[in-house]
Structure formats: C-alpha cells, structure tokens
C-alpha cells in the first residue's frame, strides 16, 4: 500500500491538492495530516503551501513539523508545491525569513522595475495564470508531459537556486525564473499541478509512481 501524506500546517486550502492526487492515486491512500508521525511513516510526502512564506514557516514550526519535513526531504519521494517549494531554500526576501535550507539559494520577489513585455506593457504581479514550463532535461516527473506545456501559476516570489544543477524547469515572466527543481528524491514546483488540468494530473500521477534512484 502506497501511503501519501499531504502535510497540513494550517495555511490555506488543501482540498484541491487532496482531490487531484486522489483522482490519479489508484490504490494509493491519500492522507492530509498535521501529525509528524504520519509524515514519518508515509511512503511519499507532498508539501504544499499558500499565502506568505513567513506565515507558512511560523505555522510549520508551531505544529512541530519542521523535523518531519526535513526527514521526508532526505529519505522518500517528496513533492513541494508553490510555497512548499520556496520553503526548501535557505532564505526568502518575503519578510526576510530563513527557510528550511534543504537547497542553497534565495527566494526573490519579481523586480517590478523590470516587469515589462518586449513592447513596453507592464506585467502584473502576482504572476497569475497559465505559463509555459520549459523542462531542463529529462526527469521521471516530466514523463508524458510535452516540453513547454502550460501550468497554472499564482505567486509574487520565485526561487533562485545557488546550484544550477538542481534546475528542472524554467519559465519566462519579465525574466526567466526557475519554475521547478529536482535533486535525488525531491521534486518541487512553483506552479500548481492540482489546478493545471491534464498536464498537472500527469505530473501528480508520475509522482505517485516515481521510484527515485537511491
């Protein structure tokens, strides 16, 4: 039995994530949980996040989930989504807070002074809507998803990894930014696969079946 824990630390609505994973889960069991023991015993872990990263970090600490997230990120198939991706990094400009430090790098805000199209139209922040995700090489989680497929984004900050080798995809919005990272058992995305129609469901399905090389 494949047990998938979706970590709930009280920030935002996990119903969409739960339903989308449930939709492709087959016989797998999907549990939305704030219990670190459930996270520790799960076969796979999904780490979502909405809202502001300082609030997310605070709530994660308040629920005693910090250690369980680090354990999962070090040991089993792990999928970070949106703020759940950003929190894996060292530090965020949002509220000037430290993250979990799984990856070296900074979470930056879109620089408003540079947010213009080639013909001078101002780009809105948040970056909200469907944008192209350019895959950086092959990965099991991109299986069956065309390069440059569109996924649904909503965010004002993006990750800037120190190690270019972990970049799994980039997206253009005023500037090219990292929209997915991968290393060993971890895959993390800035977009919302649970809201990204077929491409998103394919990615979630790939995650559930993913056997990272150990």
């Amino acid at each position, binding site marked *: 039995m494949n047990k998938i824990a979706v970590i709930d630390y009280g920030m935002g609505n996990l119903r969409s994530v739960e339903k989308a994973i449930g*939709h492709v889960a087959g016989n797998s069991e999907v549990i939305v949980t704030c219990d670190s023991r459930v996270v520790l015993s799960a076969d796979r872990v999904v780490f979502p996040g909405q809202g502001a990263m300082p609030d997310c970090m605070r709530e994660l600490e308040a629920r005693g989930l910090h250690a369980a997230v680090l354990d999962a990120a070090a040991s089993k198939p792990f999928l970070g989504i949106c703020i759940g991706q950003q929190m894996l990094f060292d530090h965020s400009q949002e509220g000037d807070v430290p993250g979990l430090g799984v990856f070296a790098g900074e979470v930056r805000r879109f620089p408003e002074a540079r947010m213009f199209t080639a013909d001078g139209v101002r780009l809105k922040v948040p970056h909200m809507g469907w944008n192209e995700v350019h895959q950086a090489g092959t990965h099991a989680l991109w299986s069956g998803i065309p390069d440059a497929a569109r996924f649904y984004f909503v965010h004002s900050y993006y990750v800037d990894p120190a190690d270019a080798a972990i970049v799994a995809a980039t997206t253009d919005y005023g500037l090219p930014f990292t929209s997915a990272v991968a290393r060993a058992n971890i895959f993390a995305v800035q977009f919302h696969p649970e809201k990204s129609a077929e491409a998103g469901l394919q990615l979630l399905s790939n995650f559930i079946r993913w056997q990272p090389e150990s």
Partner: protein
Amino acid sequence: MLAKRIIPCLDVNAGRVVKGINFVELRDAGDPVEVAKRYDQQGADEITFLDITASSDDRDIILHVVEQVAEQVFIPLTVGGGVRTVDDVRRLLNAGADKVSINTAAVNNPQVVAEASGRVGSQCIVVAIDAKQTSPGKWQVFTHGGRNNTGLDAIEWAKKVESLGAGEILLTSMDRDGTKIGFDLGLTRAVSDAVRIPVIASGGVGSLEHLAEGVSDGRADAVLAASIFHFGQHTVREAKELMRARGIEVRL
C-alpha cells in the same frame, strides 16, 4: 509568456445552471458538474460560478455544487454571489473553490477584503466591481444589478481594494452587460492601467472579436463571458483560436 485567460461564467440557481434571457426568463441549462466539465474539455482556463440563488433556505446548495465540481474539474474555480463574511469565504474555499469573489459586501464594509485576504491569502480573494459611466472618462461603482449608485469612483475603488489585499479584480460594465456590443474598453483600460493586480473584463461580449479586443485594447489579463458560450454560439477553443490569430498568447 503568460497566456491571457478565458473564463466562462455560469449562473447557478438552487444548484442548477440557468441561462437568463434579458434577465427575466430563467431557463434550466443543466447540471453544473456536466457544464463545468464541458468547458474544461474545451480548454477553459478557469471557471466562475455566480450564485444567484434568491432564497436563503437554498443558499448552502452552492457548497455542494462546488464540492462536486472540484472532484472532477482540475482548473481554478471562482465562486461569487452573496458572499458577505470571512466565514462565507472560508466555507466556499473548504468546499473546493480556489478563489472567492466579493462584491456588495466589499462596498458596505471594505474591511472584509482586508480580513479575508489576511486570513486566506490575497490569491484567493477577487473583488467584483460593477461600474457605470457617469460622464466622459468617469465611471462609478454600482450595486444591486446596477440600480444603486455607491458614489465611489471605479478607478479609485479598484486601487483601494488592491491596497486592502484583493488578488484580482473582476470588472463588469453595467452599461454593457447583456448588450452584446462589446466590453467598455475605456473602463477596462483605465482600471487595468491603474492597478498592479490582474483585471478580468466582463460585460457586453457578443462575439469572439470582443474577447480579443478586451485583451488587446482593454489590456485585460483575462476575459469572462457567459452567453456566448452557453448558447452553443461558440466554444472556448474557437475563442482561443481567434485570439491567437490576433497575436494574443493563449493556452491551446
């Protein structure tokens, strides 16, 4: 680059999709789950439900509708209509909505926008603005289907709700709503240029060209339409093909 979004809007009355003809006669147009799935298959970028249920006894039905749609449709869902309190917002999000749109309640008590976005995040809060032109280059905010003039300037109000934490603005021209002669492009452009958050244009769509104009001339980030899709006149896919032919980036 980021695609411009096309958002079909469904009016829901006591759990059924309804089509209004000149706002008088309401005809049953099917099961919300089936209609939403059809638009999803046509390539809709989001779906908006407007709950027009009049009877307070039936108001919770929309929660069941949202639950059922969210089980089967994996694109963003926005729900509006009769949202008054932060508790209303939370109940809709818990049922599976991704965004909730607030209209009259925001005018009556702007603090509800700040409270709601503080609690659930700006990305979940859409403020719906119904505007009418009052003099050249001036628009004011109306409520109650355009009957009640709040006296608020639409552009100033848009900036105000942005500062309160709205994540997006759904802008409807009450002059154009139901006319099928196209968006009020002056209004759309004025609001879109005044705020940094995305603006959804609504009201007046009668052809696919109108949708393209909303983006190219109105500078909207997304366009919303109801009747053009409901009556089988056009599919979402046709709308996107036309927009692409006009040089607009879409998800196809």
